[in-house]
């Protein structure tokens, strides 16, 4: 399979975005994994949702025309900061529903 240089740089950019989000997340002391059982927890951790948001925002910027490795690294850093401080106020944890 012939892998062109453009595809390689794109894949590398996504991986770099995730790595920079993980590094900044570790620096900001975010939990790495949510608590068990993982599928029911609302905690914001490094693996979820910070990594998903990092590659998502990178994809948005790539489609808007700003390509390159530097864009991906910057987006990863900004996503980790956004997830730590602003995500909780944007999407609050739901209170448990009252039963009638």
């Amino acid at each position, binding site marked *: 399979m012939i892998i062109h240089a453009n595809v390689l740089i794109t894949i590398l950019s996504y991986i770099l975005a995730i790595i920079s989000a993980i590094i900044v997340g570790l620096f900001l002391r975010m939990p790495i994994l949510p608590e068990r059982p*993982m599928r029911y927890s609302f905690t914001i951790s490094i693996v*979820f949702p910070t990594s998903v948001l990092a590659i998502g925002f990178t994809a948005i910027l790539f489609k808007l025309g700003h390509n390159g490795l530097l864009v991906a690294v910057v987006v990863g850093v900004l996503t980790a900061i956004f997830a730590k401080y602003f995500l909780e106020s944007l*999407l609050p944890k739901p209170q448990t529903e009252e039963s009638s």
Partner: protein
Amino acid sequence: MNEIIAIIIAAVLSWINFVLIDTWMGLPEQPGVKGAEVIGRSVKRRGGDLAGGFFQGNIVCSPDASAGTLLASAACYTIGTPEGGLIAAILVYFGNRLCADPGYAGTTGALSITCIIFAASYIGIGPADFIVGMVLAIVTIQGLYHPFSSRLLGKIAKKMGRHTKLP
């Protein structure tokens, strides 16, 4: 590739993708919100399985892997693979949090179907076939005969250790 065969293959792949991911993420175990419990109990009253009913109710009341699959295919069709799937993943995550759901099922479904669409593009199945395939798959679960489909979902849930413990 013949269009009908492509749609059928895409439907089977989407069905497997969202049923396995949703079952693994615990949708048959308990109703995520009150509305899902209402639908689950109604399915059980009509002769179905309670865990399958909770699964169907959770699909209605909150974006899950089925929504992630459909929206990621739509985004891959209009925006391009794989950027569309990644963008759909974050939008589905925001939608999940708006519906009081942690968000694991929707994003996992979107990301995994993006990988499947990327691989299937090498054998001639495009994202548009996956859009139609996903709608066909959800019609087999929600639109044909609920007691039978809920019993099938309940059997799959039991095999994966996710059957409900509620009465």
